C-alpha cells in the first residue's frame, strides 16, 4: 500500500512539474474536496459540464451549476460567456450570486468560432473564467483550450449543449478536460412548514477526474435568491453523498 502511495505521489509530482500550478477552488466540503486533486477544483484547466436528456438541448441546470461553481472565481476578474443561442438571462445569474456586471457575453456564429473565442478569451490577462456552450470538443480543440488555460492560469468551463432539434453527435473518444461533470436538477426541499420551492438543488455526477476520484452528490445552493448570494465563499453545500463507486469497490476488495 505504501508503495502504491509513493508511486502516486511520484506521478503527481511529474504531472505538476509540467505546468505552473494555478491553485484550486475548494467546494468547502471535505467529502467532495477529498476526491479532487489538490482538494478542490483545479484552476488553470478546463472542465466539462454536461446535462442529461432534454438538458442536453436547453442546458439550464448545467449553466446554473457552472455559474454557482465559478461565482467565487468571477469575483477575481472578468468572466466571458460564449453562447450559440443568446438565451442566457442575466437576472437569473444575479439571483444565483454570479455578478452579471462582470460578465461579457459573446454570441458566436458557429461551433468553430465559439471554440476560437473561448481560446482567445482564456489567453487574455484579467479574464479569470471562460464559459463556452459548444456541442463537442475534439482532442485537438481540447489541447488548444488547455494550452490557452495554461498561459494565464484562467479556468475554462465547457458546457456541452446540442443545437435544438439536432441529433446527438457521437462523443469523442478521449478528452483532455480536467474533470467531467454531469448535472441535473434535483427536487428541492423547502424548510419544514414553508410553502413553495426550496433552495435549488442539483444532482452532480463527477464522472471523470484527472488525479482524483469520481463521485455523485446532491448539492444545494443555500444562498440563492437572497441578497447574500454573491458574498459566500462556497455557494454550494453538500446535502447527500449518493455514491462512491471506487470506495465501494475498495471496501468490497478489502472484505474479499
Amino acid at each position, binding site marked *: 500500500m505504501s508503495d502504491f502511495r509513493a508511486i502516486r505521489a511520484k506521478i503527481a509530482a511529474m504531472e505538476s512539474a509540467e505546468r505552473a500550478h494555478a491553485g484550486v477552488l475548494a467546494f468547502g466540503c471535505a467529502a467532495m474536496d477529498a476526491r479532487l486533486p489538490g482538494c478542490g477544483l483545479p484552476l488553470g484547466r478546463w472542465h466539462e459540464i454536461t446535462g442529461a436528456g432534454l438538458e442536453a438541448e436547453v442546458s439550464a441546470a448545467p449553466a*446554473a451549476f457552472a455559474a454557482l461553481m465559478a461565482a467565487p472565481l468571477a469575483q477575481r476578474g472578468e468572466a466571458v460567456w460564449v453562447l450559440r443561442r*443568446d438565451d442566457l438571462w*442575466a437576472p437569473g445569474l444575479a439571483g444565483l450570486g454570479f455578478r452579471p*456586471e462582470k460578465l461579457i457575453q459573446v454570441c458566436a456564429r458557429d461551433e468553430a468560432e465559439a471554440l476560437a473565442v473561448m481560446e482567445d478569451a482564456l489567453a487574455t490577462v484579467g479574464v479569470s473564467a471562460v464559459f463556452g456552450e459548444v456541442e463537442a470538443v475534439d482532442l485537438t480543440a481540447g489541447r488548444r483550450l488547455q494550452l490557452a488555460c495554461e498561459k494565464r492560469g484562467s479556468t475554462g468551463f465547457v458546457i456541452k449543449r446540442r443545437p435544438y432539434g439536432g441529433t446527438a453527435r457521437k462523443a469523442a473518444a478521449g478528452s483532455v478536460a480536467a474533470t467531467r461533470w454531469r448535472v441535473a436538477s434535483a427536487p428541492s426541499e423547502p424548510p419544514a412548514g414553508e410553502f413553495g420551492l426550496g433552495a*435549488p438543488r442539483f444532482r452532480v455526477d463527477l464522472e471523470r477526474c484527472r488525479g482524483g476520484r469520481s463521485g455523485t452528490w446532491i448539492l444545494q445552493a443555500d444562498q440563492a435568491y437572497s441578497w447574500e448570494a454573491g458574498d459566500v465563499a462556497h455557494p454550494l453545500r453538500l446535502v447527500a453523498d449518493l455514491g462512491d463507486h471506487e470506495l465501494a469497490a475498495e471496501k468490497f476488495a478489502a472484505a474479499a
Partner: protein
Amino acid sequence: MAVSSDAACLGLHPGQKATDAMALVPELTTADAEPEADAQALAGLVDWCVRFSPAVAADAPDGLFLDISGVSHLWGGEAELMADFRDRLASNGLAFHLALADTPGAAWALAHFGRDGTIAPPGGQAELLKPLPPAALRLDPEAAAQIARLGLRRLGQLIDLPRAPLGRRFGQATLERLDQALGRATEALRFRRPPTPWTARLAFLEPISAPEDMARVTTDVTARLCARLEAENQGARRFEIAFHRADGKALPIAVGLALPGRDARRIARLLHPKVETVDPGFGIECVTICAYAVEPVSGRQIHIEAGLAPAVEDGLAPLIDRLANRLGPERVWRAAPVDSHVPERAVSRAAALGAAAAEARPWDPETPRPVRLFRQPEPLEAVTALLPDDPPRQFRWRGRTHVVRRAEGPERIGEEWWRREIGEVSVAHVRDYYRVEDAEGGRFWVFRAGPYGDPAAPPKWWLHGLFG
C-alpha cells in the same frame, strides 16, 4: 432636366417641352430623370474626392465643394492641384467646371458662370465676380427675378449699391449670399464626413494590388497616424482606412476600439483581416486613414510585475476589440439592467467595456428569475390547473408530460400599458407567472396569459424560462 452637349449644339435647352424638342430634332433620344441615381453618383464622387482633401461637401444636385486649405502644397500649389484634379476627372469621362476661390460662394459663382478653371487670387474674388450675372449668388428665384426686373445685370452693380436699401428690397438672404461670396460672412458647409484633423495618407508611384503589399501599406499608414496621435497624447476609438483604386472607387474599411488607443501594431492587426476582403481591381493608387472620436489618452508605463494587477488596457480591451471587429459589435455585450418588470425588457445590451450607465436599479436577487429565458415563450399543452389562480398540476412540453410537485405564485406581471396605443390597452393583458418544480426536480417558469372569465376561450399557458 438636362441635355447632352451634342443636343445643346442642336439648339435644345433644359426647360424645353419634349414636343418642341422633338420638332427640332426628330431622332431625339429621351431618358427619364433619375434623381436617386444622380445623388448616388454624386456621393460616389464625393467619396472619391477625399483623396484630395478630407473636407468634401456635396452641393446637390450636381456640384461639390472641396476645401483645400492646407493641402494644396502636397501637389506643389493650387494650380498643380487643379491640374491633377482636372486630369483625373477627365479620365473618368466626366463633364465639369472648376473654380477656386477664397469662399465657397465665390467659387460656386465662378464655376457656374465664370471661365472654367478660374483661380481667384487671395482676396481678389470681388473683381472676378463683378462681371457675373446676379444669379451667380445662389439666390432664391423670386429675389433673382426681382433683381432682373430692376435691370441689374451684373454683380458689380449689386455690390456698389448701399447695403441697407439692398437688404430691404431683396431680402436678408440676398445680402447674406453676397457677404458669403465676398468673404464678409462665413458659410458653413455640410461636409460629407466630419472633418478630422487626424488623417494620414500614402500615395504610390505605381498602383499596388498584391495582398502582402496592401497589408504592409496598412501597417505603414497606421503607424504614421499613430505616431502623430502619440506625439500629441491623443488616442482614437475609430479608424477608417480607404483604399483609392485606379478606377476612381474608394473602398473604406473601419475598425472600432473599446477604449481610445494609438497602438499602431494592434490597430493594424485588427485591420489586416478586413484588408484581405478588399478587391484591388486594377491597383490601389493611394491609401488614406482617418481617426475619429479622438480624445486625450495619457501615456502608460508598462508594469514590471504585469501579472499582479492586470490593467484593462493590457488584456480586456484588445480582446473585446478583436471579438467585436471579427464577430460584429452587436455580438459582444454586457447585460445591463433596465427599469422594467416585463421580463423580456428587463435586460439591455451595454457596451462590453466603458462606463456603465448606473441609472437603472440592479435586478433584485430576491425574486427568483430563470437562468434561461426563451425569446419566444413556448406553448404548454394539456395543462390541468384548478380555477382560478392555481398553478398547473401537470403540463406537456416538447412531448413530455411533467407532473408538478411544488409551485410558487402567482406573480402577476402586467403589460406596460404606456407603450401601447390607448385603444389596445386592456385589463386582460396580464400574465400570471408561477415557478413550478416537477417530480424530477426540473424548475420551470410558466405563465398563464390573461385571467379566466370567458369559458369559450380559456387562457393559454406558456413556458418562459428554465431555472435549472
